[in-house]
């Protein structure tokens, strides 16, 4: 099993790391931003291999040896090509994205303290994740009835794998895309068995790669202390760990949303080769659509948000040039998603399929629905994440927001995207045919967790770093002492 497991993981992971090296930021393709690139590579590896597995099911059918040989050939050829391209371009021409802040005495104890806090939080979260996974080895009810069920159909189904997309398998979401089930089924096919550790491992990779991505990106874009703080906040979000362990697709979707926004932020800051980051953003957005239907909503939102931010500042031509490169990453995955939606699992999500045009208009005109959904959203915002947004706002009041404008376009784009996503989710609650109360009880937590890592990322992008706050505080103290000495003299 171990050799098969390694065979299933290592080739796509190596390929993805090479791709992250080629497209990612920093002066050196591998050494710079190592943790950030590893986290991106985890998502890329699962996304790419789920697509190749789906392609193999369509073309080659369910043959284990055929899959291993064809994927192996494809990955080795692609990795060779990437390695050759990387060797040709030894340097990206990028400088480091951020300057180390001027050392001040408080850094000497603050960074080690934050590091210890992050290690304690990581150990606690990992332990909790393992125990939660052991308690529900097949995942919670939706994992059992949607994601892992479909993975079983793909891995066990021989010629019947398509049955899971017919009306015979009564499920409310026949058209849910396949990134998660195909990733799990692919590993099961390689191993030739169905150990429950595989879906748990996929869930763990996505959960901790999300946290690692937010922390490492902020560590590079802002400061080490800021990255560690963001990591501690996400590790200390109990629902993120619990929901991650439940093996639902919301945390993987949250990863791809965050990865798209991080790639755009790194693109804004990079001063050398930048197109790769746009293509990376496109690829990650595509994988969000390949993970869940909400990802299909995220793709136009992120494009629209880019338009709203880039066009007023830099004009249509700049926007068009960006979108051309963004499409290079996005379109291949989007084509797979549309092929799947049209030919393999035709049909609409119940939220659209069960709508009547008259009733939808009636729902839109019913203001009690807005009040009920609005109250639920606000209550959730105040409580979410324990400590949640309230504690983050208190932190903002204590340290203040950053003063320089370096990341203003990136902050605007991230904020507009998340704002539009929230508005979109809110409108789904208004027009849902299943009742606002039902939607709040069954979906609100899950929708929040899709956006929460990106909200934390945005918050720490915007707020002053602990290093800056400490330096300012130290500066103020020196000023006070000097003022006192002047007064005395």
């Amino acid at each position, binding site marked *: 099993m171990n050799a098969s497991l390694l065979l299933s993981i290592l080739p796509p992971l190596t390929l993805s790391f090479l791709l992250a090296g080629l497209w990612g930021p920093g002066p050196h393709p591998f050494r710079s931003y190592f943790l950030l690139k590893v986290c991106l590579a985890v998502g890329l590896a699962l996304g790419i291999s789920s697509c190749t597995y789906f392609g193999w099911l369509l073309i080659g059918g369910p043959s284990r040896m055929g899959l291993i040989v064809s994927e192996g050939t494809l990955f080795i050829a692609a990795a060779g090509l990437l390695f050759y391209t990387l060797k040709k371009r030894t340097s990206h021409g990028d400088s480091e994205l951020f300057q180390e802040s001027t050392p001040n005495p408080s850094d000497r104890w603050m960074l080690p303290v934050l590091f210890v806090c992050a290690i304690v939080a990581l150990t606690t979260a990992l332990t909790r994740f393992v125990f939660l996974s052991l308690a529900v080895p097949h995942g919670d*009810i939706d994992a059992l*009835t949607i994601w892992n069920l479909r993975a079983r159909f793909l891995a*066990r189904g021989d010629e019947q794998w398509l049955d899971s997309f017919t009306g*015979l398998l009564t499920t409310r979401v026949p058209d849910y895309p396949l990134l998660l089930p195909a990733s799990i089924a692919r590993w099961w096919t390689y191993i030739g068995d169905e150990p429950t550790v595989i879906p748990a491992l996929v869930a763990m990779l996505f959960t901790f790669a999300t946290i690692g991505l937010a922390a490492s990106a902020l560590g590079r874009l802002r400061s080490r202390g800021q990255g560690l703080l963001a990591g501690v906040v996400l590790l200390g979000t109990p629902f993120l760990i619990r929901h991650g362990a439940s093996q639902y697709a919301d945390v993987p979707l949250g990863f791809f949303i965050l990865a798209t926004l991080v790639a755009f932020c790194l693109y804004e800051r990079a001063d050398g080769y930048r197109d790769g980051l746009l293509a990376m953003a496109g690829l990650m957005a595509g994988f969000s659509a390949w993970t869940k239907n909400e990802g299909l909503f995220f793709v136009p939102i992120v494009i629209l948000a880019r338009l709203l931010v880039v066009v007023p500042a830099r004009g249509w031509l700049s926007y068009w040039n960006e979108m051309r490169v963004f499409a290079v990453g996005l379109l291949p995955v989007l084509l797979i998603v549309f092929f799947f939606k049209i030919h393999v699992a035709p049909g609409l999500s119940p939220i659209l399929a069960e709508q009547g045009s008259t009733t939808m208009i009636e729902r839109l005109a019913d203001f009690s629905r807005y009040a009920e959904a609005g109250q639920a959203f606000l209550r959730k915002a105040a409580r979410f994440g324990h400590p949640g947004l309230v504690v983050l706002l208190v932190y903002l009041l204590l340290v203040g927001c950053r003063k320089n404008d370096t990341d203003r376009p990136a902050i605007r784009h991230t904020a507009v995207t998340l704002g539009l996503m929230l508005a979109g989710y809110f409108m789904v609650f208004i027009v849902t045919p299943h009742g606002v109360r039902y939607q709040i009880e069954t979906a609100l937590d899950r929708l929040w967790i899709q956006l929460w890592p990106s909200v934390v990322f945005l918050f720490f992008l915007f707020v002053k770093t602990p290093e800056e706050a400490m330096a300012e505080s130290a500066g103020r103290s020196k000023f006070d002492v000097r003022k006192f000495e002047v007064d005395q003299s």
Partner: protein
Amino acid sequence: MGGYAAYEKYLIVRYVLAPVLAENDAHYALVVGNITQPKTDSQQFLCQHSLTLMTDLGDGLLLLKGTPR
């Protein structure tokens, strides 16, 4: 037979049996029975639902022959 707990058990059966498609209905050629109440008279229950016992798998789990609709 009814209730959410029973429906959850059906979902688990569907998960376990995949890729065989299991419907939440007794009107099929093959039926999986899960008789968990000790007081249930199995024979009477099977007659009532026009089912014939094929294999008793133990712990109340039965493979039954049903009458397709």
